């Protein structure tokens, strides 16, 4: 555990990717196979199945420290990370013992069947047996969320160096539903026979946002242009008559979408399609929020299946006839995909249409229609491109439409969490309505650290009232708020709800009186509103 905890600390102290790869390579070279497997699992967001809930975990720590629950919660809201807060309030261990990462994971798993009281007792004892960095990892195993700015690609690069295997191969081998309980390091990474796992998806190829102007990409003829749909990027797999549906987050979601089951029969075996899972009714996409709601449901009633039917907009073909097509140029993959979709002839599997235009300028014009199509802009894909693995620059780009913006006045401010615990970074913003300010969105600051410091000082010096952690401030500062969507809402005082609001910039040039009004906001609703 000591080495793993140290790896964790070291990773946070560097921003250099090469250094991080080196740290992982070193870790892999000196830890046991079982520890390596767990390290890989944890950095791929897999962790031992729930051991204890966070309420019980809090109770254990409050029991040891004697802290008042509210005082703990105040601390948690400042620190922003539960495992870290628990670790910080605990006293130093009285009898640290050195054990491996897998030892502690096995230990946790062994407590799973115990009665609550016994489980708590065992865990409290363990908390007293670790140094602070180790204890942090131990607590993280129970609370989840190993986020340290390390991508799976980076881990695989290090693993590739260590095993002397191509990282892309490792990426494929580590996709899907494995867990350290069901496999071993050698089985997962070193066996060349991967046929047994029929549901295994390919690593997704992800695009970066376009930085410059599309003109810089060269001839439009060399590019395939599609709408960028706002759904769940997915892989649909049919092998040996069985269907599997994977989300980009490597989650198996087959059971959530029974409507795709017939495709297991109508699609040829050995087929893998990359596409967007969308809620579509009468040929028109529905708001993404409805799909989210559907996924959140425990029971899929007839009603919800009828109200929010799902379908796939097919982008790409990764496997056909059991053959991996990823090295074949996009234009050829597209041709086979077209034929396949036609042959299947189902309304729930449709080709993501290509957008054609004379030139880039014409395309730019067409892009303005994105919102009414419920799309977020265009995807630009080089026709000759292979299907790569992970996020890569060069061949695929997202060309998103500009967000909607409104100039609004800050009326409430609250200190941030975690990274921003010492600064006022969460603001409630309001627009004018008949001489009054009506709040319409809460946004996290997209300001620079320097601006944040400046705003925080303003908040400290211009507080009118305090309600718990929230401060009412003199309405003076104007911010440009950007958002992706706008909807009617009965739950908001303003009557509208916006999607992904964030602060674009500080309009130092504007006075509070010059901010936008509720009428401006409602105009956007009529123009672009989602039903």
């Amino acid at each position, binding site marked *: 555990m000591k080495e793993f905890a140290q790896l964790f600390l070291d990773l946070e102290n560097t921003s250099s990717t090469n250094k991080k790869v080196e740290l992982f390579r070193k870790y892999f070279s000196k830890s046991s196979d079982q520890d390596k497997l767990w390290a890989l699992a944890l950095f791929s967001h897999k962790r031992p199945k729930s051991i204890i809930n966070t309420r019980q975990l809090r109770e254990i720590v409050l029991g040891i420290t004697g802290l008042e629950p509210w005082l703990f919660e*105040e*601390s948690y809201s400042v620190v922003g990370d539960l495992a870290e807060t628990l670790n*910080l309030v605990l006293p130093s261990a009285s009898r640290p013992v050195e054990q491996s990462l897998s030892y502690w994971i096995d230990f946790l798993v062994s407590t799973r069947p115990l009665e609550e009281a016994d489980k708590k007792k065992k865990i409290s004892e363990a908390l007293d047996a670790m140094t602070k960095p180790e204890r942090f990892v131990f607590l993280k195993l129970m609370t989840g969320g190993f986020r340290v700015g390390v991508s799976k690609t980076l881990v695989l690069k290090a693993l590739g160096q260590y095993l002397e295997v191509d990282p892309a191969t490792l990426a494929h081998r580590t996709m899907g539903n494995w867990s350290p309980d069901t496999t071993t390091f050698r089985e997962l990474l070193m066996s060349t026979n991967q046929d047994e796992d029929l549901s295994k998806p390919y690593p997704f190829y992800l695009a970066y946002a376009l930085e410059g102007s599309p003109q810089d990409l060269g001839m439009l003829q060399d590019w395939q242009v599609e709408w960028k749909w706002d759904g769940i990027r997915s892989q649909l797999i049919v092998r040996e008559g069985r269907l599997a549906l994977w989300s980009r987050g490597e989650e198996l979601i087959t059971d959530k979408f029974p409507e795709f089951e017939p495709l297991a029969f109508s699609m040829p075996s050995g087929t893998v399609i990359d596409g967007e899972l969308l809620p579509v009714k009468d040929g028109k996409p529905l708001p993404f929020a409805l799909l989210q709601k559907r996924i959140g449901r425990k029971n899929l009633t007839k009603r919800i299946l009828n109200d929010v039917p799902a379908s796939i907009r097919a982008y790409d073909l990764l496997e056909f006839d059991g053959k991996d097509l990823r090295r074949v140029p996009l234009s050829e993959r597209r041709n086979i995909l077209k034929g396949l979709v036609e042959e299947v002839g189902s309304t729930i599997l449709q080709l993501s249409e290509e957008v054609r235009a004379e030139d880039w300028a014409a395309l730019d014009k067409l892009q303005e229609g994105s919102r009414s199509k419920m799309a977020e802009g265009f995807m630009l894909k080089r026709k000759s491109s292979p299907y790569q693995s992970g996020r890569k620059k060069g061949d695929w780009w997202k060309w998103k439409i500009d967000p909607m913006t409104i100039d609004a006045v800050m009326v409430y401010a609250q200190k941030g969490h975690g990274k921003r615990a010492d600064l006022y970074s969460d603001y409630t913003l309001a627009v004018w309505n008949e001489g009054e300010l009506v709040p319409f969105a809460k946004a996290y600051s997209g300001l620079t650290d320097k601006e944040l410091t400046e705003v925080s000082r303003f908040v400290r010096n211009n507080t009118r009232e305090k309600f718990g952690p929230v401060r009412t401030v003199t309405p003076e500062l104007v911010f440009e708020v950007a958002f992706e969507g706008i909807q009617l809402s009965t739950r908001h005082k303003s009557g509208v709800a916006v999607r992904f609001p964030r602060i674009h910039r500080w309009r130092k040039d504007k006075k509070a009186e010059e901010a936008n009004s509720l009428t401006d906001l409602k105009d956007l609703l009529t123009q672009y509103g989602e039903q």
Partner: protein
Amino acid sequence: MSTPLLSFTNKGIYCAQADVFIDPWQPVHKALVTHAHSDHARMGSRKYLAHDQSKEVLKLRLGDDIQLQTVKYNQPLSINGVKISFHPAGHVPGSAQIRLEYKAQTWVVSGDYKLEDDGFTIPFEPVKCTHFVTESTFGLPVFNWRPQSEVIEGINRWWLANKAEGKTSLIAAYALGKAQRIIQALDHSIGPVFVHGAIHNVNEALHRNGIKQKPTTLVTPEIAKEAYKGALIIAPGSALGTSWTRRFQPFAIAQVSGWMNIRGIKKRRGSHQGFVLSDHADWKGLVQAVKWSQAENIYVTHGYKSVFSRWLREQGWNADEVETLYEGELSEGESGTQV
């Protein structure tokens, strides 16, 4: 009940009986200054009263021509019947808790303080009173400092490791207090220690005040780049990230602050090494100081004041939070103003 001896006004903490302000943030006639940090010692007042060891730094920061009177610790003077004395706060050289006594009331305004003896600053001395004004910069139970020796050992090890890699070690620290504390505690046998001009000026001022320190060298354009290899440089946070640091390449940066205790805050300040060391009291320190004061009335200022005052009330103290403009230990971006 008699009128409180001190009141909290929009200019600062005020004693009407003696007509003096303590650490005012607007110009006043007479200012008592707990210590020379810029959020406590501000420009523009007619007369200042501070501790002896604050003298030269105050003149450096507020101007040579200020009207400044200084006193020793535990040396009372009287203004219109109010007995006023300064007592060690252990925060930075010259820092004081200011005690004001009049009739049945004894108030202690503690400014900023820490309880640990840092081996450089005269350590904190508990002062009994009826009314205690305390900071709360780190007033949450997640702030528990490790002993200084342990932290310094970590810094020494980091320095050695950088040296072995052929790198210069850069430390960001407050120009008054933190910088000198680190200089004093470091193992100078590892290599030479250089300082930024802002810190050099404070060192010189403290020297004029008769405070002995381990020798350091000022970074100047004349010094050859090679001299910095394996050396340790101490600079205010505002100097890092500027072209000033170019001469030290390749280098590693460490932040030394109580805020480094929280991963999120550390990350926001860049992916650097962080060491948890503060000149402010941690949670246990704040609680201890309140207990030692034996005061019934506690006024909680700058920091997590609503949390700390609520907790004190629940433990039976008569505690209130008070709005001031003191800033405690700041984010790196703001520490530049402390120079």
